């Protein structure tokens, strides 16, 4: 009895230590968003203030980077939704030569280190003489966003039995009606979950972006630059808080959408 209590106490302690290890750095980032000391990380902070929020709000470069990040994430998510869902439909709905190979090729970009993806994209853009721009960032992000959407959609397509689509046709529906009333409602939550994860992935992506961006900076790139030449250091922390919230909410949403017995595959990169 006593030893049980002791071991459960130790387990609790270990769990708390693990959680601290994971989240203390995050808490520190949040804390220093409120510090009065602008140039160094002094602990404890000499004072707390909300001024940095106002400063951040008034900085044009922050807005520019945030705008670009949202734009890139949105467009690459839309591209990923279309391509990933179509690809999942093709792979799970029909049998053709090389089907397994295609499935593997689609998933590969997420297994590759980002730096390999980045370098290969950069040389491809060079060869094709495509100037680095917002478009190239979007294309780069789309490569791994497609995988996330594909993985979610393909799992759902597998549960959608072929006879259900046949039943719809048999009952008089044309292809469009079958897609609209039968296929879409059954894969919608998987698409939404995949889309949210894709958005979150794109929003905080650094490596591929470094290789595919021109002069523009997405939010994570902007933060890296800020760390190198710090002016008003806590502004970075305020932005970091925003990034955490912006990426955390979609992931939470994806979790709740697919929790009812569906796999959310490929959630991490």
């Amino acid at each position, binding site marked *: 009895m006593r030893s049980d209590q002791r071991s459960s106490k130790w387990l609790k302690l270990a769990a708390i230590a693990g959680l601290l290890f994971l989240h203390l750095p995050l808490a520190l980032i949040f804390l220093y968003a409120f510090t009065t000391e602008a140039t160094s990380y002094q602990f404890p902070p000499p004072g707390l203030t909300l001024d940095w929020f106002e400063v951040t709000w008034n900085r044009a470069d922050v807005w520019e980077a945030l705008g670009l990040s949202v734009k890139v994430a949105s467009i690459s998510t839309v591209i990923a939704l279309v391509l990933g869902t179509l690809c999942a439909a093709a792979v799970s709905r029909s049998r053709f030569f090389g089907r397994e190979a295609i499935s593997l090729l689609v998933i590969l970009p997420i297994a590759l280190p980002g730096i390999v993806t980045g370098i290969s994209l950069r040389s491809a853009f060079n060869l094709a003489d495509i100037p680095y721009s917002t478009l190239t960032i979007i294309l780069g992000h789309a490569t791994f966003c497609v995988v996330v959407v594909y993985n979610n959609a393909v799992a759902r397509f597998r549960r959608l*039995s072929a*006879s*259900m689509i*046949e*039943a*719809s*046709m*048999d*009952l*008089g*529906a*044309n292809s469009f*009606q079958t897609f609209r*009333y*039968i296929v879409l*409602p*059954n894969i919608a939550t998987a698409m939404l979950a995949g889309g949210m994860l894709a958005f979150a992935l794109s929003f905080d992506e650094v490596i591929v972006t470094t290789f595919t961006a021109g002069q523009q900076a997405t939010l994570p790139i902007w933060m890296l630059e800020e760390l190198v030449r710090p002016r008003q250091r806590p502004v970075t922390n305020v932005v970091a808080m925003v990034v955490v919230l912006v990426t955390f909410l979609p992931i939470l949403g994806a979790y709740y959408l697919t929790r009812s017995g569906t796999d959310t595959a490929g959630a991490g990169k």
Partner: protein
Amino acid sequence: MTVAVEFKKVSRHFGAVKAVDEVDLKIDEGSFFAMLGPSGSGKTTSLRLISGFDQPSAGSIHIFGEACETAPPNRRPVNTVFQDYALFPHLSIRDNVAYGLMVRGVRKNLRHQEADEMLSLVKLDNFGDRKPAQLSGGQRQRVALARALVNKPRVLLLDEPLGALDLKLREQMQEELKALQQRLGITFVFVTHDQTEALSMADKIAVFNAGGIVQIGTPEEVYHRPRTKFVADFVGSSNLVPPQISLDLGGQSCWSSLKPEALTLTKQEGAKVVGTVKSIRYLGATNRVMIQVGETELSALLSNTADHWTRGDFVGLQVKPGALYAMEENT
């Protein structure tokens, strides 16, 4: 009588596999038609050719006189009850049943009213608001039936309709399906590998084997007068009697079928055909006695009150006049 479905030399080949090969078939309007055969015999492919999910490689298919080899499923006056029911999991039972009306643009209150009427026909009143996952296998089967029938098809296709149900439910659904078919007067075409199901429900049975139809006939014909050894073996528990034994028993000198209940045993003296009792199985009112006659094993169904035989007895065999039915020799 109008012909509901007609196959003229219909073939469906998948590469070298002849799933259906030059099949001729006529299904009369208002009949309860069974396609019976082992798996891979072409019965399901034939059903899919009627529903439009598959197109023939050669030959023509007419549904109520109209050629429709290439018409898509949504343009045919037929509906299907799928083997796995294929209910739409995200729709309520009522919306499932009303689906066919919805895609045709029937107004909501009208189609819901018709769906409810159909649900009451299959004894599922008050189930309209539930989801398919909340129903039992037998209830889903009824929903699938209602969903197909609401479109007022001229032919209803059923793919192994009772395969997923347990024995008791299956027997109950057999009776209900039969009653429903008689009440509605619609042509029912169903695929099954279960001969008792085919025999008890159908007006007519087509026995499939290896991509072709071996015999078409009423249950009585198929059961009592199988045309080939395959039919005799697959449909009934008929004895297959080799030519010589058939001749000795008073039949023709060719392969013949013989129902176990038409075979009687006598004391050995004076019999032209003799054998040894190999085993006796007690079946309640009757005993099933297996008799070894040379190379052949025959089974007899004997009343319990008749003479008692024991294993190893030498017996003479007799058959009732006309009980031996000559079959085509090939296959």
